[in-house]
């Protein structure tokens, strides 16, 4: 019975996206930290995570959504900006940071609103 409360695919997708946002945040933090390290290649979320999540959500299968695991990988598309082989571009990283923060806000609000709606439904009180 309890599982039924939380098996909503969009809720599960929001939770998974939050996981991905956390992984991405770590990747961006690492990239910015290694801004001046010679030979450093920038890392990011694995590119196939997005596609896998979309597939799982469209199939509507809660189990499939839950089994996804976002992970870090070296970004093969990044080009070296300087002679020492460092592929980190600060402007790009700052923009990714802002986008990631917004995504975090969005997903947090989605998760939060579902939990509050449940509480409202259960207790009949609005806060």
């Amino acid at each position: 019975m309890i599982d039924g409360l939380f098996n909503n695919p969009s809720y599960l997708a929001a939770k998974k996206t939050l996981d991905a946002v956390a992984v991405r945040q770590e990747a961006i933090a690492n990239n910015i930290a290694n801004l001046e390290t010679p030979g450093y290649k920038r890392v990011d979320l694995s590119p196939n995570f997005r596609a896998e999540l979309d597939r799982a959500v469209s199939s509507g299968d809660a189990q499939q959504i839950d089994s996804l695991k976002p992970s870090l990988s070296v970004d093969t598309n990044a080009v070296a900006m300087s002679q020492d082989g460092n592929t980190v571009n600060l402007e790009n990283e700052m923009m990714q940071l802002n986008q990631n923060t917004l995504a975090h806000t969005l997903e947090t609000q989605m998760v939060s609103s579902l939990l509050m709606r449940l509480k409202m439904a259960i207790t009949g009180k609005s806060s």
Partner: protein
Amino acid sequence: MIQPLSGIQNTVAALDAERTRLDVISENIANANTTHGVDGKPYQRKVVVFESAMQQAMGAGGNGSMTPQLHVARIDTDKRAPLEIYAPGNPDADARGMVATPNINIHEEMADLIAASRAFEANLAVVKNEKSMAMQTLSIGKH
């Protein structure tokens, strides 16, 4: 110990490393005209070398991602030879009247200074950002 802000160990290390770099640059600038140091030789320009050792750091969600751990490997001395200037009146002038001055280019140092400050501020922004995200997370389900 509890780590609410996850994944910013490298950021902390980077802030440290950039501070070291700023210190070294300011030392270089201050000693731009030191012709006679403690060891009797002109001041040798110092350079900070960053290194990132691959460390099996645990990524968010326990996927064991390999994230490089940044640290300052060493502070090297610049191998370039001192600049020789013709100044016979200088007490440090040798027999030919040449004085060995540190080979420090102020423009190079200023460019390095700007790069180091930029990196420092970027890392600060990451920490601030991480903190506001954590505060948001803590208010899930509260309002």
